[in-house]
C-alpha cells in the first residue's frame, strides 16, 4: 500500500455565513458544499461564492450531471440546482449515521460514518445494492477513473484513501497534515480532490497522486 503525505494545493474559505463544511461536490464548474442549512457554491478558480440554496444539508453532497443530492437527517434529497427545489427524497441507508455521498455510473455511494461502511444504493428507491466494509470511519466518498476514494477522520488523524471497490482493501493513503480533517470528498475529474475541512469552514484542494 502506498502511504504519502497529502499535498495541499489551495485553501478556500472560511465562507461568511457557513462555519462548517459537511459535504462537498463539484458540478464541473463550481464546488458545492453543505453547511447545515445551506448548499453553497463557489468558483474554484477565484474562490468567490456564486450561489447558495436554502436546504437542510447535514452530511454528504453529490452531483449526477443534472441534480444535486444532499443528505439531511436520515434522508437523501434530490435537488434541482436551477430552482433549489427538493424534487424527491429517499431513505439514507445508514438511517442517519450517513456521512459521505458520491454519484457514479447511475448509482449513489453512501459512506456510513461510525458504521465504517460504504453502501451502493439505487438512487430512485434507496435500496442497498452492495456494501463495502472499511476499517476507518467514512467521512466522504468519491469516484474518479474507476477508483473509489474515501475520507477518514478520527481524532487528530485524517486521511484520503483509495480502496478496492470489491474487497474494501486499502490501496493507497494520503495523510492529511496534523489538525486538518476531511469532512467531505470530491474529485474534480482531473488531478485534484476537494476536501471539506469540518469546523474550520474551509474547503481544501488536495493533489491526486498519479
Amino acid at each position, binding site marked *: 500500500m502506498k502511504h504519502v503525505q497529502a499535498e495541499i494545493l489551495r485553501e478556500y474559505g472560511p465562507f461568511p455565513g457557513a462555519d*462548517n463544511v459537511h459535504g462537498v461536490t463539484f458540478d464541473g464548474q463550481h464546488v458545492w458544499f453543505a453547511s447545515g442549512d445551506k448548499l453553497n457554491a463557489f468558483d474554484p478558480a477565484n474562490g468567490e461564492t456564486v450561489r447558495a440554496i436554502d436546504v437542510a444539508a447535514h452530511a454528504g453532497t453529490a452531483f449526477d450531471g443534472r441534480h444535486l443530492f444532499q*443528505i439531511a437527517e436520515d434522508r437523501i434529497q434530490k435537488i434541482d440546482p436551477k430552482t433549489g427545489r427538493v424534487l424527491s427524497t429517499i431513505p439514507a441507508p*445508514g438511517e442517519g*449515521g*450517513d456521512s459521505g455521498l458520491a454519484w457514479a455510473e447511475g448509482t449513489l455511494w453512501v459512506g456510513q460514518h*461510525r458504521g465504517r461502511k460504504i453502501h451502493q444504493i439505487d438512487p430512485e428507491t434507496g435500496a442497498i445494492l452492495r456494501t463495502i466494509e472499511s476499517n476507518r470511519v467514512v467521512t466522504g466518498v468519491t469516484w474518479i477513473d474507476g477508483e473509489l476514494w474515501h475520507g477518514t477522520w*478520527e481524532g487528530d488523524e485524517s486521511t484520503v484513501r483509495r480502496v478496492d471497490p470489491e474487497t474494501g482493501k486499502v490501496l493507497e493513503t494520503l495523510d492529511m497534515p496534523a489538525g486538518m480533517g476531511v469532512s467531505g470528498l470530491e474529485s474534480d475529474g482531473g488531478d485534484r480532490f476537494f476536501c471539506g475541512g*469540518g*469546523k474550520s469552514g474551509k474547503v481544501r484542494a488536495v493533489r491526486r497522486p498519479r
Partner: protein
Amino acid sequence: MDSLITAAARALAGGDPLGALKRVALRDDPPALALRGIAMAQLGDLARAKTLLKNAARGFGPREARARARCVVAEAEIALVSRDLSFPSKALDMARATLEKHDDWVNAAHARNLVVRRLLLVGRVDEAERALADVDPAPLPPASRAAYELVVAGIAIRRLQTKTARAALARAERAARHANIPALTAEVESASLLLDTPAARLIERGEGRPLLLEEVEMLFASQALVVDACRHVVRGTGTVVSLATRPVLFALARALAEAWPGDVPRGALIARAFRAKHADESHRARLRVEIGRLRAELGKLAEVSATKRGFALAPRQAGELVVLVPPVEGQHAAMLAFLADGESWSSSALAIALGASPRTVQRALEALGAAGKVQSFGRGRARRWMTPPVPAFPTVLLLPGPLPGD
C-alpha cells in the same frame, strides 16, 4: 460527523435540546450518547445526563481522546452544578491536559475555569486565586467568559476587593448579553445585587447602621480598630488577631468595644461572656483571668484597663474603635458568622470555635441547612459546611461540545 449527529448538534447549539433529543433518542453510539447527555443536562435531568456522558466517554475509541476529555469536562460541570463534590478533580485535570495536548484551547480553558470554580466552591479561596492565574480568558466564547468573570468577582468579593469585583461583574454582564442566554444574564444581575445589599452592620459609639461591602472594605483600610463579629477577629492597621477559637475572649472584646469610649461593669461582662445571671466570686476570679488573656492576645492593638466598676478597652494607636456585626443577628448568628468567611468548616471545628457541644452544633447546622442558609458536602467525618457561595458559580450549564472530529 454523520448526518443526524450534525442535525442534532445544530439543534442543541440553537437552544433546542428537545429537537436534538428527537434526532438521536434511539442511538447509542458515543457521539449520540454525548449529545443526549448534554441535552438532558440542559433539560435539568442531571442524573440521567451524568450516566449518558459517562457512557459516551467510555465508548469513544483510542483515537478519540479529545472527545472523551470533553465528555469528562461536561460531566465535571454537571457534578459541580449539582454540588456533587465527589467528582475526582484528578479526572478533570487529566481531561484538561488532554485538551491542551490536542490544541483544543476553548475547552481546555473551560476545564481550567471549572477547576477554579470547584476550589472556590469548597472554600479553598487561596488555591482558587492561584489557579485562576493560569486561565487565559481570551479564547473563551461569551458564555464561558461570563462564567470566568463571575469567578473573578467571587474571589474579589471574598477578598473584599469591591472595585475588582464590580469591574469583573460588568465584564460578566457584557459577555452574558453577548452570549444571549437570559438565565446567565439573570445570574450576573443577581450577583451584582450582592454589592448593593448591606453586607454587615457597623456599631460605632453605641449606634448601629448597615454597611455595603464597599464600605466594609473602606473601614478595613481605615485607621479604625475593628472588632469584627463577622469573622471573630480584631483588626488593626496591618494586624489581624483571630479569636475564632476563643469565644469567651471575643465576647469580652465585643462587649468592651460596643461600650467604647466608656467602660463595662463586671456584672455585665460576666453575663455576656459566661452567660451567668448572678456574678459570684468565682466568676469574678475567672473574669480577671480571661481579661488577662485578652490583654495578651490584643497586645499592641488595644489596651484593656481596669476601671472602678469594671473594664475598658482602648485602641493604642487607632483613633476609632468600632464593631462590625453580620447584617442580621438571629438564632445561630454566631455560627453563620464563622461560616461567612467562605471557607469550609467541619462541625467539630465549629463546635470548638463556638464553645458548644458537637451535638448542639450538628442540630443547628441541620436547621440552617433545611432553611437553605448553609450547605454541606462530603460524608461522615469528611463532611464540611459552608454558607451558600458568593456568585462565582453559575448554575447555568455551559457544557462544551463533546463531539469528535470537529
